[in-house]
């Protein structure tokens, strides 16, 4: 199924959880935050939150800025 991940279309398996997505991106240990359809998914729900087709997912972190 398709999701919009950080503004780009990605193909992922049905029933993928946020945790699985982060693992597949090697981000499981990186300090990030995840938003689905403009709502934050708290860290505690990564293992249970299942992505749906056409979800708009944002995965963000801190970068240098002023």
């Amino acid at each position, binding site marked *: 199924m398709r999701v919009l*991940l*950080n*503004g*780009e279309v990605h193909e992922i398996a049905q029933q993928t959880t946020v945790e699985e997505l982060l693992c597949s*991106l*090697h*981000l499981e240990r*990186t*300090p*990030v*935050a*995840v*938003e689905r359809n*403009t709502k*934050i998914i*708290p*860290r505690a729900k990564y293992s249970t939150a299942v992505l749906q087709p056409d979800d708009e997912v*944002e*995965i*963000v*972190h*801190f*970068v*240098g*800025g*002023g």
Partner: protein
Amino acid sequence: MAEISEIDALQIGSHTFRSRLMTGTGKYPSMEVARGALRASGSEVVTVAVRRVDLSDSDEESILGMLQQEGRIILPNTAGCYTAEDAVRTARLAREILDTPLIKLEVIGDTQTLFPDIPATLEAAATLVSEGFTVLPYFTDDPVSAKRLEELGCAAVMPLAAPIGSGLGIQNPRNIEIIVQKAKVPVIVDAGVGTASDAALAMELGVDGVLMNTAIAGAKDPVRMATAMRLAIQAGRDAFLAGRIPRKLYASASSPIEGVIGSKFEP
């Protein structure tokens, strides 16, 4: 030698700081230069932006890691947001990453000046305060907006000195002075400082601190400029507390007028 200024602390929200210099982390030529400048600056509060993870580059160096190694307080910002809604979303994401209530609120109104959108900044500030954030809003040097932001519950107000990255220094010292006189929360000058004397001047106006990024990161020698800024902030603070001499049009001799050789006795 012990700095007199080290006993004069800055309180923002629940934090107490010895340093009155806050720094940004953008535009450094390398992580190592950023680290060197951070150390030289003595800055305790460091701001970072929230951006999408680059999914095509899993080896991105982590700014957060470096800052935590250096033991700094992280101040996430909403730079790049053009609506209250985006700024609020970004603030929530930042809190989710680090579990910190601190947020430097920026709602930009224009791509060329990067001046804030005042109504949107007020709106976002109200929302974020109600959600428990410790809000430090970037805004113009407008005394009325400063008062509104304070009334909304912001932990500090952050008027700009000049456009972000412009290096022009304090364009309107009298507005900053008025903001300081009327504020009950700390006033931090944010954006526009170009060199050390600009930073010292800001502190002499009575502000509680200065936040800068480009002035250090964009200097030919960022580490040396960071040292300059650390010293300038302390210098300006001490000068403010020491109470400067008044300005006069004419001179006033610093050596005694009497006792010069050759003068005659005048009974």
